[in-house]
């Protein structure tokens, strides 16, 4: 669905920010881009939507080169959630905001169909629709931005730090909604995220970046268990994983607190049995 072929990119009057990036995301995949600050994650997702064009190499979305078409024409297929939701919101009520997005990308459906669609999304995100976006909290504004993207039913969802600055409940709320999109509609998700617990819980694939290069791409758990790789990328793996690695002895495979608890209990039972 998203395919990078030897992509390099440099901002004007700066050294290269992205070098020789190649990877591919299949339809319905949930990928997380992880790495330290300044590793080039935001640049990579901007490239993925064609907001930036590669200096060399190519980026394909659904087989189409981003250089050959306009970003706005792709909006229906690709939803992009920015780090700063305020740049996206421009209407006075949440309902208007969602309708605005719908009218730009699905104008052919007719007003009444769009209205119905907007109401459905409002209910799904538990908004009444009459809230003023700029009077909401940051987390809620983030959800408004997400709601207006969801309304258009994109096939690809690109998210730049969707959960940064949100409280735990709000974070789970948003991530669950993203997961539902991913599972029910086979939406491809590419997410930049600094919260490795979130990455472990939700993503299936991890793209590890450092210094503008792709260090590794693979299943999230495998990547997190690779100590050397995590060190190189300056990423701290989730605590459960670290704990499992530290304990060794069969605990490495536990990747949730529940699984860890089960493993401990099972181990204890075994020890109890051998004592008798």
């Amino acid at each position: 669905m998203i395919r990078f072929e030897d992509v390099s990119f440099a901002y004007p009057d700066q050294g290269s920010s992205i070098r020789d990036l190649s990877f591919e995301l299949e339809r319905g995949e949930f990928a997380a881009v992880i790495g330290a600050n300044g590793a080039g994650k935001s640049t990579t997702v901007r490239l993925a939507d064609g907001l930036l064009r590669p200096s060399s190499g190519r980026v394909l979305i659904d087989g189409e080169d981003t250089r050959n078409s306009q970003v706005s024409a792709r909006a229906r297929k690709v939803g992009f959630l920015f780090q700063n939701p305020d740049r996206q919101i421009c209407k006075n009520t949440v309902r208007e905001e969602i309708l605005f997005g719908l009218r730009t990308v699905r104008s052919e459906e007719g007003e009444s169909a769009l209205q119905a669609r907007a109401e459905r999304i409002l209910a799904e995100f538990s908004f009444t629709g009459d809230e003023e976006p700029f009077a909401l909290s940051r987390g809620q504004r983030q959800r408004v931005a997400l709601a207006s993207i969801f309304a258009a039913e994109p096939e690809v969802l690109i998210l730049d730090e969707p959960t940064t600055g949100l409280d735990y409940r709000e974070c789970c709320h948003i991530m669950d909604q993203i997961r539902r999109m991913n599972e029910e509609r086979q939406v491809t998700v590419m997410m930049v995220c600094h919260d490795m617990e979130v990455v472990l819980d939700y993503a299936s694939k991890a793209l590890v970046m450092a210094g503008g290069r792709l260090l590794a791409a693979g299943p999230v758990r495998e990547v997190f268990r690779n100590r050397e790789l995590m060190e190189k990328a300056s990423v701290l793996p989730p605590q459960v994983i670290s704990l499992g690695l530290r304990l060794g002895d069969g605990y490495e495979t536990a990747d949730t607190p529940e699984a860890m608890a089960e493993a401990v209990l099972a181990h204890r039972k075994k020890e109890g049995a051998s004592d008798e």
Partner: protein
Amino acid sequence: MNKLFQYVPGNSLIHRLNPVTKIALTVVICAAAFITDHLLFLVCLLAIDLLIGLIAGVAGRTWSIFRGLVKIAAFLFLLQVLLTRAGNPIFWIITDHGLLTAGKVVLRLIVVCMPLTLVLAVTRISDLTNAMVQVLHVPYPYAFTVSTAIRFIPQFLEEMSGIMEAQTARGVAFDQAKGFKKFSMILPLCAPLLISSVRRTDQMAVAAEARGFHLRTRASAYKQYGFSTGDLLTAVFCILLLAAAILL
């Protein structure tokens, strides 16, 4: 575009002038441009503008400012020429008087705008503020207001392009529209821009207050802004320029 008002580090003759001298030079050039009524004198002033840019070692910046201004000037020139009725007709509805007036108007525009932008290229905004407070005895809050307004311009432009990017990603066809159409698409975006600006101003006020903004006086700056021979020569040049503008 974002770099238009940014400081270009350097150690040229112009860079080393006292910020106040630079302001004075700017003001004098502007005043001269408005006082004089000679086309040739205006051309000389333009040459001085360009020369200053060259001496300051910011030729590239000078050129890009000049090019931008010429574009606006060309439009104004056309309007002026087509709308002036007075004078002897030369060709179609164009008159000699119209040509002359239009020429003067656009030259004045270019001559005045160039030093105003160049002074920001060769002076740190903080130096500009401090010198205004120290030498000209401008109360600090006023000087701060001016410098902050200038500092906001690039941030404002960056925010604008960020908003346009976000809207493009949502399907607003900024990347397909041109000219007036694009302008009409920008208007609805003023709400987010305004809100982010107000928010930022608010944050800045609180931050400034927390760092003792109201305690600051003339004596607070540690850097002294002295006058050198270069400043003296520039002052003499300013007086000559002004005299020439009045007498000629």
